[in-house]
């Protein structure tokens, strides 16, 4: 593709974004005095601020380029990531898990494992999370470089290094507080910068119904426009998966594993001003989460229609023999946006990537500082020293991200890569957290060995399929399966192995006394009192509405 020449108005908008982001960083620096300010944004945020940041921390490269590209590759089944693959887990976090997290005043998810189990479980998860976060951060960096390369024709290496330097400067300004502020800026930029692509795509093709009809005409043997009606037979849908893989792998294990235990998103809820605001954080975010497909899924389907109509002249980029699915959204921006709007579209993508990477790095610096450095290397570190260490970890984390970005570039679709990582770390962790929060006789040794077995088995399965030690169908329980389906099933097996090993080991090892588990385990913790709170102020009320909306969406697009 010939690179786009940016006009003065485009540069002006990109420049305005950097002025705003850096300006906010400097403005907030005066309010970032302590480690609590730097790592937890002072715990003063409203549920709206924390909720939009909670969603935006996830709305990076994964959501924009990856999901649009995956819709082109797999069809509308990708919407499962936003509905069954997100909403139930977010509501479960808000209603059932947040009271344990928030009330224990922990600073990170591994910090909960330390209180509930022991130090070794905390360190194991802390290291796994730190590694995973840097890998994911590399994906964000890769995506940023893709945008700069696609739009501006910049060299890959220069793009990556410039992006990394920008994010490093921005994150070190004022920690989580500035990360959250810029995540909210990013949220509005994405909607104002990218939703217009969907609108113009609908106008060009005719209507949403016409888009669905033309996609159906293109893929008559395999459905690209349904959610469930073709899930009984994997050969009938674009993702080549059965409903079992979607429900167990994505809807249960991967979704709950990510949304309820991944510190990157949960950290935003920890910044809320009180327990109600913390519980409302993921519930409010769920409403915006279920709306994101109206950008990414719709543009993916529009790209399918346009790419299969030679008269439009629209075609995805190719890297040699491989189709670059992730180029779909940038190419649509180039198709529809004149000068000025191009700058807005580029800025929206840049904001998504920068905030996504900043989110990863801010989560990494917290886990590194508290759960690895203070826990293992320097137990007597002062508050000032921890604040300094957080800033050092930010810079070092960015440098490691650059290395992982080069690895991510070799994968044809970045979303597949992301899911593979989540199934190594988050899927087994969800079993540990679920048992830890809801079963009081689960022991520290049970949790540690279960987590280790779950993570080890997931990684081993990944290698076994990749190097063809075993056939994929052994894991996926179906004769055919896509890479995505393999990820879902691998997550399920990792969760199940962790769950089983944790229970078995717990039966034979020493429990923690009940008095050490008060506030950490259901049954030993007073329930959240809603006495005197009107029904329309209760988190449960909004959770029910959210659940009803997502059920309606699934039925409508069945």
């Amino acid at each position, binding site marked *: 593709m010939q690179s786009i020449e940016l006009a003065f*108005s485009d540069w002006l908008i990109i420049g305005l974004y950097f002025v705003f982001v850096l300006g906010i960083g400097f403005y907030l620096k005066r309010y970032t005095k302590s480690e609590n300010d730097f790592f937890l944004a002072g715990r*003063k945020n409203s549920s709206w601020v924390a909720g939009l940041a909670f969603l935006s921390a996830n709305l990076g490269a994964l959501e924009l380029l990856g999901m649009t590209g995956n819709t082109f590759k797999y069809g509308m089944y990708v919407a499962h990531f936003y509905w069954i693959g997100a909403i139930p887990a977010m509501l479960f976090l808000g209603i059932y898990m947040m009271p344990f997290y928030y009330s224990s005043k922990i600073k990170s998810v591994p910090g909960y494992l330390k209180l509930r189990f022991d130090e070794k479980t905390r360190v194991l998860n802390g290291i796994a999370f730190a590694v995973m976060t840097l890998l994911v951060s590399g994906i964000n960096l890769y995506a940023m470089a893709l945008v700069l390369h696609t739009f501006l024709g910049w060299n890959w290496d220069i793009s990556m290094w410039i992006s990394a330097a920008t994010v490093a400067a921005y994150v070190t300004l004022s920690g989580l507080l500035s990360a959250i502020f810029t995540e909210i800026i990013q949220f509005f930029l994405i909607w*104002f910068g990218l939703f217009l692509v969907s609108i113009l795509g609908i106008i060009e093709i005719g209507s949403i119904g016409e888009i669905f009809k033309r996609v159906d005409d293109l893929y008559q043997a395999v459905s690209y426009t349904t959610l469930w009606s073709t899930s009984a037979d994997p050969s009938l849908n674009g993702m080549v998966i059965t409903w079992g893989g979607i429900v167990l792998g994505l809807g249960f294990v991967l979704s709950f594993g990510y949304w309820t235990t991944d510190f990157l998103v949960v950290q935003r809820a920890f910044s809320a001003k009180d327990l109600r605001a913390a519980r409302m954080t993921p519930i409010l975010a769920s409403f915006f989460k279920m709306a994101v497909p109206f950008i990414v899924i719709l543009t993916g389907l529009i790209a399918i229609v346009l790419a299969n109509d030679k008269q439009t002249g629209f075609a995805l980029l190719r890297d040699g023999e491989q189709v670059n699915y992730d180029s779909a959204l940038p190419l649509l921006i180039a198709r529809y946006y004149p000068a*000025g*709007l191009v700058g807005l579209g580029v800025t929206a993508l840049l904001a998504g990537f920068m905030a996504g990477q900043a989110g990863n790095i801010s989560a990494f610096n917290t886990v590194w500082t508290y759960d690895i450095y203070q826990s293992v290397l320097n137990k007597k570190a002062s508050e000032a020293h921890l604040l300094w260490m957080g800033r050092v970890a930010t810079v070092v984390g960015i440098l490691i991200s650059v290395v992982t970005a080069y690895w991510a570039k070799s994968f044809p679709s970045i979303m597949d890569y992301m899911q593979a990582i989540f199934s190594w770390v988050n899927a087994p962790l969800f079993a540990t957290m679920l048992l830890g929060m809801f079963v009081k006789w689960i022991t520290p040794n049970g949790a540690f060995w279960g987590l280790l077995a779950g993570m080890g088995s997931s990684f081993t399965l990944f290698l076994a399929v990749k190097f063809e030690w075993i056939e994929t169908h052994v894991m996926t329980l179906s004769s055919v399966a896509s890479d995505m389906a393999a990820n879902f099933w691998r997550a399920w097996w990792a969760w199940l192995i962790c769950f089983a090993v944790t229970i078995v080991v717990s039966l034979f090892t020493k429990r923690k006394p009940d008095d050490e588990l008060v506030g950490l385990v259901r049954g030993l913790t007073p329930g959240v009192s809603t006495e005197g709170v009107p029904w329309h102020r209760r988190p449960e009320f909004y959770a029910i509405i959210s659940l009803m909306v997502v059920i309606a969406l699934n039925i409508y697009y069945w």
Partner: protein
Amino acid sequence: MDSEPRKMKPIWYFVGLMLLAMGAVVAASGIYHYLNPGTVKTVLADLHPDLWWGAVMIIAGAIFLLVNRKVTVD
């Protein structure tokens, strides 16, 4: 040490500022393209998406800014 409560502008104020500023640039660009239609070669350019989308952003930004112009938070 500063013992006074530290008040700052809410994030919504900055969101309003940003939408207003960017919307103004997009709308101005749209006016230029409207007056010089030959300079635009994108699909659906005749709909002038930059003109009306810029206006939408200006209105949204102005609302955020007006509502939060006197608000401060801890």
